[in-house]
């Protein structure tokens, strides 16, 4: 009875001929692909294939020596993470980057940072705009908490939580920014089967409920094949495959490089 009808739109992020090198080390070589609106796009590849570098390029942390990135029709030059965030792109990290000593609630509130406009003074003495904004932003954060079912740890310091929940809190913080595009760096790494299933469900729910475009890096082939609309495969910094999960699964180059050559 469940009829999923997500409308996948036109390409909103286009990467063309991206090359990135650190000194003599070529991290990415001539990579082109695009991301369409509302889709779940996976980037896979063996260790060191350049997946995280790719994400960092999109995020504006790394600046490729060659190639162009077009986001919603505008070519991006000299990006930095701050401006990326302002454009509605949020991310999570492979090795959790939360404030361990702060509560879950406060951590997620930091995701609303860009939505707050009150000045330092206003916030310090808690008047006018600061107060109004805090209430409004707290409401948004509570919606995310409800969405990801983490009410019971709202006031728990993040450092005391198990790994799987910390990952979920990180996703919550990214969601709090109300992104139109979400970059997830190995969201299921190090999780047990049940935690992975939960995380898959949340990723799908986010995509379905908010229509958020999702770019994710993942190791677990099963997960990727189950939830992605299209998959890019990298190996040694080169693109060796691109297409829907079935196409990628049957692509000989991918089978050889990623799943191993039969001897």
């Amino acid at each position, binding site marked *: 009875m469940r*009829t*999923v009808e997500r409308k996948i739109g036109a390409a909103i992020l286009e990467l063309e001929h991206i090359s990135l090198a650190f000194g003599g080390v070529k991290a990415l070589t001539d990579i082109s692909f695009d991301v369409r609106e509302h889709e779940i796009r996976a980037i896979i590849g063996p260790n060191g294939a350049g997946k995280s570098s790719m994400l960092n390029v999109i995020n504006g942390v790394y600046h490729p020596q060659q190639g162009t990135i077009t986001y919603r029709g505008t070519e991006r030059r000299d990006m930095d993470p701050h401006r990326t965030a302002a454009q509605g792109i949020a991310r999570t990290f492979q090795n959790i980057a939360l404030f361990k000593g702060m509560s879950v609630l406060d951590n997620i509130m930091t995701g609303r940072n860009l939505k707050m406009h009150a000045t330092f003074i206003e916030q310090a003495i808690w008047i006018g705009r600061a107060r109004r904004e805090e209430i409004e932003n707290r409401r948004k954060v*509570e919606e995310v908490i409800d969405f990801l079912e983490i*009410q019971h740890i*709202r006031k728990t310091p993040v450092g005391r939580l198990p790994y799987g929940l910390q990952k979920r809190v990180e996703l919550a913080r990214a969601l709090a920014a109300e992104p139109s595009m979400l970059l997830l760096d190995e969201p299921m790494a190090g999780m047990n089967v049940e935690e992975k299933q939960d995380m898959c469900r949340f990723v799908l729910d986010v995509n*379905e*409920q908010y229509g958020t475009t999702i770019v994710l890096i993942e190791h677990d082939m099963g997960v990727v094949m189950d939830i992605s609309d299209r998959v890019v495969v990298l190996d040694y910094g080169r693109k060796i495959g691109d297409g829907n999960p079935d196409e990628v699964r049957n692509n000989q180059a991918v089978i050889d490089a990623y799943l191993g050559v039969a001897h």
Partner: protein
Amino acid sequence: MDAQLDTFPRLLLHHAQVRGSHPACREKDLGIWQTWTWLEVAVEVRALACGLAAKGFGRGMHLAIIGDNRPRLYWSMLAAQALGGIPVPMYQDAPAADFVFVLNDAEIAYAVVEDQEQVDKMLEAMPQVPTLRHICYDKPRGLRNYDGVLAFDALQALGREFDRAHPGFYEAEVARGRPDDVSVMLYTSGTTGKAKGVCQAHAAFIASARGGAQFDRLTPDDSILSYLPMAWVGDHLFSFAQWVYVGFTINCPESGDTVMTDLREIGPTYYFAPPRVFENLLTQVTIRMEDASWIKRRIYRQSMAVARRCGTQILDGKPIGTADRVEYALGNLLIYGPLRNVLGMSRIRVAYTAGAAIGPDLFRFYRSIGINLKQLYGSTETCAYVCLQPDGAVKFDSVGLPAPGVEVKIANDGEVLVRGPMLLKEYYKRPDATAESIDGDGFFRTGDAGLFDDDGQLKIIDRAKDVGRLTSGAMYAPNYIENKLKFFPHIKEAVAFGHQRSEVCAFVNIDMGSVGNWAERRGIAYSSYTDLAQKPEVYQLVKECVEQVNAELAHDPALAGSQVHRFLVLHKELDPDDDELTRTRKVRRSFIADKYAVLIDALYGGRTVQHIETLVKFEDGRTGMVAADLRIENAMTHAAPPAARAAQSR
């Protein structure tokens, strides 16, 4: 109160009139407590009732209600009753297959459920339940693309339209209700055979609510946390019948995981929990105290010693010395007060527990720190209302005096018989069962064996049919033994065997939280429940518990023969999903005896180790195998005291 206030929908209208702005329900939503007044509840219920009517629901029909405690689900009960329909709450954690029987038995056509999880279960059950047609859900999340199900808001919108088109309809429907109409159908947990639908009239639940309210002087200013399954008679009495009768406030927690936090925030004045909840709380407190610094541990131990000595006497208003009073006041300042606050019990005036026996240490702990914890006795068939413990005369091993309006007598074979306005009208479609359980004089057979003590308080020993005899002829009450074992925090469940056997043997389930913590503290490594359960150190720990129980049993001449001779620790937790426990977590002894026959043979056959493989069902319906070699241990038993031997030989 007005003589006209004899059905729940009329009581609702009454509250909307006399205390319209008084809070009726609260629920935490998006981190903030939302409040609905009695007037608002009346408006919501009216819209919902009219919505149901617009969909064809009417007099005599059954409305399934499934979900966690939420104001909207309680309103659904009132809405069904307003139309002369009968709400049928069901256990929300049961898998779809378990719903099928009840849905068919009650010929359910309409269901109001909480969320996507429950909708999915309803849709799964639908092919096997031809009558089921209308499903209404409360939380819309994830349900956007479902066809053929209706949102709660949409149903209410329909209702408001219907209400405008049919002025006076709602009032007329409420006026048509009679006190002897069935107000709710609660399914018994099925310790014995298939579940039976217990039909309770408005009059029965109102009589029970009135009696309880008078007994404990409840007022509209009381407030209670509603967190127990809505299908359970206890919740229906405390969070529904007494709520609508007295007009106090119910508070629904944010989610099952936040109950403790919500309890602290609300600070209810009136509280009801099965012994298990009190047990878990105490276990947590104990574990956290053991992790505290030595100075805190020391203050805690000292204060608790004072509380044990004089706490209960102070609560009961008995005279005690000035020195004790001063020491207790100090303890109250340092430990009891803050502890009550942490437990969310600072404002509690009356707390009840029921459903299973409560350990004396556990019971004394709460009473000694100033929480007025009492016991009651009742069942689904009696609206959970037979005996109540009065303030000032509370004993851990009795369940109190017969409640106002209730007659209790003991049959010749020891069975407890009760009569009063709170008795069930009938078992649904089971005249045979109804006739069997109510005798010619109108007394209901509770199926419990009990006796009155010197103060006229009722003492329940066991299920009447479970009381057996050893081959020596000595009485054997398995529940009594199991409860004694379960009073140890390390033991979660126990199952005793002995009827028509030469001696008593037992299965034990360890408590993962408590024993796990104990093992960590001692540096005992373990990989899983099964692994931990079979550790020699754990066996030693359990053995000490068993031997302590034996020592206690040996004191009682009638029960000295029931000492546990041999035991084993089970490799898996007994689970309602595997049919080993009922949904209210009572052990199904005969089912377990059949399922684990090989283990029982090993216990009585003198073996020291036995291999077993068991099929387990996970929550999502998948199955798996658990295999283990179980060790079997002997426990030391004590000779019966000379007086007992004399008594036996007589």
